């Protein structure tokens, strides 16, 4: 928090994003013959072109978008709750979004209109944010927040199993892993298309809240004295988190730890203001999920791991270190 913003951060993150995107695009069960793709650009029906355009490109785009949503939502929630442990996964918002998506998807509502699946995720995520806000309180202690998160996560994940159990679909029960650990495997451009409008709207809400979050870091009175309407601004952020997390989870399941880890990595590089954390967290979130997606494809190409396995392998130890450091600082 003591450090000054680094001028090179954004160019560096953009470069990392491009490289991670390329790496993810080139990962897969087969090496892609790029010469084949470009030379046959006009020739329809080339397998390499089909694989690149219809399978890998939508998948990588979705991985990047989902990561950006989670990183951004994590940074915004940590600013809103003024709590460094408030990531959407840890406090149960992602699981609530997954519950909303599960109900709309498995009970046939998602087929009625394109927007109903992300809308289900949105409603679930909104309920999750509001619950955590009221349970943990405005001046949430770390312990209060984590306990509320444990409870919300437990209830939401058991309701996901319950909903899947009631679904008549024979495959539903085995898909619980997807919803709890997340994956972008076999995504198509349709998944990208239904999520993008919600994601962009959420990004606008959250990226526009930077100044309010800066003001909020001086406390509610401080923000109020600077002329902010606290209730309205807070609602704005809650809607933004619900839009981004709801849309991301409804097309990729619950990819954990991104929203927790990414803002922590970025914070020392941007200085004390939470508002400055938002955009870099979004880009770094995209990088993290793209790298995780490349990793799941490289580690086990035949039977892919779920994304959440890799992000938790990185995020879990990071979380432990965070807890250790907080205890250490408290002493």
């Amino acid at each position, binding site marked *: 928090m003591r450090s000054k913003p680094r001028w090179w951060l954004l160019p560096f993150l953009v470069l990392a994003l491009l490289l991670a995107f390329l790496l993810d695009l080139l990962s897969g069960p087969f090496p892609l013959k790029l010469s084949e793709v470009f030379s046959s650009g006009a020739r329809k029906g080339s397998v390499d072109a089909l694989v690149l355009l219809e399978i890998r490109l939508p998948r990588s785009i979705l991985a990047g978008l989902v990561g950006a949503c989670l990183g951004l939502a994590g940074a915004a929630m940590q600013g809103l709750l003024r709590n460094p442990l408030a990531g959407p996964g840890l406090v149960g918002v992602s699981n609530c979004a997954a519950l909303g998506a599960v109900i709309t998807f498995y009970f046939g509502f998602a087929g009625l209109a394109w927007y109903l699946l992300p809308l289900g995720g949105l409603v679930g995520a909104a309920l999750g944010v509001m619950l955590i806000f009221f349970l943990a309180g405005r001046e949430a202690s770390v312990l209060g927040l984590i306990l509320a998160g444990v409870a919300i996560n437990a209830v939401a994940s058991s309701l996901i199993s319950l909903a899947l159990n009631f679904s008549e*679909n024979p495959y539903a029960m085995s898909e619980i892993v997807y919803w709890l650990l997340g994956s972008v495997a076999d995504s198509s451009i349709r998944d990208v298309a239904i999520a993008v409008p919600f994601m962009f709207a959420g990004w606008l809400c959250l990226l526009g809240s930077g100044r309010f979050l800066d003001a909020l870091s001086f406390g509610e009175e401080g923000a109020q004295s600077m002329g902010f309407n606290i209730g309205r601004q807070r609602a704005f952020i809650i809607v933004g988190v619900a839009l981004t997390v709801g849309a991301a989870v409804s097309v990729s399941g619950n990819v954990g730890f991104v929203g927790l880890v990414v803002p922590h990595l970025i914070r020392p590089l941007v200085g004390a203001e939470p508002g400055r954390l938002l955009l870099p967290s979004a880009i770094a979130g995209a990088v993290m999920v793209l790298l995780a997606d490349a990793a799941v494809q490289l580690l086990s190409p035949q039977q892919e791991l779920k994304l959440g396995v890799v992000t938790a392998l990185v995020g879990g130890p990071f979380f432990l270190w965070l807890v250790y450091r907080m205890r250490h600082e408290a002493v």
Partner: protein
Amino acid sequence: MIPSVKLDRRCLWLTLLILCYLCGGRTQAAERIVSINLCTDQLLLLLAPVERISSVSFMAANPVYSAYAERVGQIPLNHARVEEIVAFDPDLVLAYELSDRRLVRLLRELGYRVELVPGAKSLEDVATVIAHTAALLQQPAAGAELLAAMDRQLDPGRAAPADPRPLAVIYAPNGYSPGAETLPGAVLEAAGFANLSDRLGNQYGAVIPLEQLLRHQPDLYIIDDQEPNMNSLAQKKLRHPALEKNIAASATARIDGRLWSCPTPMVAQAVAELRDLR
């Protein structure tokens, strides 16, 4: 080479007689039979008269999964729970080789006779399973009749299909594709197709990633999705735009999964349907 699907009738008759003798000599024909698995349900409905059937599993009455759902009629249904089964006081419980082991052990400890019907990985296995079940039920004539009908439909005198065999893939929800050591794989081979799953070394079947599927460009896609109108991620995978484009450019068939999900005479119909696609 196509493996011989000819059922050696003399051998089967002999097996039937020996099994009948062994079973018959030991027990009376069961009169209150309970089946707890979709495959044993169907065999029971085919082989035993209704008055000897106390209960079949709820799956047997679902026409999406059971080829003989219309035969269930008023027969009570069970969900393979021990208390339900005990309530019928069965003198024979038919379970599948892979049925819940704890349930089977508990039923046996309670003194019930539980017979495990083996699974089938080939057309010969199907004939053996039918003969074995007919013997358990002491219905040798019904068993022989089914086998003869199946034999006629398989038409063993028919000339072996010419090489090269067209490459086919069975693609089920989740991208699962059965290999040679499975009943659908055996049906595919008997119908004269090469199986992509075998070519990839998946003898028992495995998930074929979408990219791998597209690269091998099979001549025939056989989509095995029994409830295409349901919503699951497993089935969503079958509607991926890249797969749809590729399927549109080659031959495609939808097969009724009931034909080959269990060792019943329906497998002969599956072979006949796929032969027509060659």
